[in-house]
């Protein structure tokens, strides 16, 4: 199989989350090279956009292929939710690029 064919095979059909969908970041203390900041784990946000499919950097960090490709999203969080002592405007948000394997659908209240 050619490299290009291997990548196509590894390419997921579609991202699991849609724009505007509420998601929760996994609250996991995983070992290894992690691309999800500690402060955002366990927080709820909204998918701002799907960015694309990329080799998983948490695998690339160990010299492996990073396949299958992982969906990357820009996720928007409300600052006062992220930082309980936040003193800025209530409407302030922060966008963070997060990989799909760090996200789960947020439970609706």
């Amino acid at each position, binding site marked *: 199989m050619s490299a290009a064919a291997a990548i196509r095979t590894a390419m997921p059909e579609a991202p699991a989350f849609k724009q505007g969908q509420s998601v929760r970041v996994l609250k996991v*203390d995983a070992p*290894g*090279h*992690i691309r999800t*900041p*500690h*402060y*955002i784990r366990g927080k709820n946000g909204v998918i701002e956009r799907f960015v694309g499919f990329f080799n998983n*950097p948490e695998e*690339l*960090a*160990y*010299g492996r292929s990073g396949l299958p490709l992982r969906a990357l999203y820009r996720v928007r969080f409300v600052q006062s939710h992220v*930082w309980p002592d936040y003193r800025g405007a209530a409407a302030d948000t922060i966008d963070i690029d997060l990989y799909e394997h760090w996200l789960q659908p947020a439970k609706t209240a």
Partner: protein
Amino acid sequence: MKAYHDLGGTPAGPIDKAEHDLQLWEKRIEALLVLLKNKNILRVDENRRGLESLGSDVYFSLSYAERRMLSMSNNLILKGVITVDELAHKIAEIESRKDPLP
């Protein structure tokens, strides 16, 4: 547990916004990292992982460029691109020069 390099949310003082010129050796570190990436020898992800393996004492005692250099050296030794002996001999040779950093 939060990893030592994961600083988001850590109390910190004011940001030093003063511009500073990169030293020649600092530019060379970045150039080497680009070359190693383009030659498929070392990925930037691997070098970042290396930074996170230095230990907090070493990590916080070094500058940005020093950290990246040390991680690169460790990675190149790990991958067999250079040996510890070759690196030690080269360092000794450079230190013996009249002008180590031309």
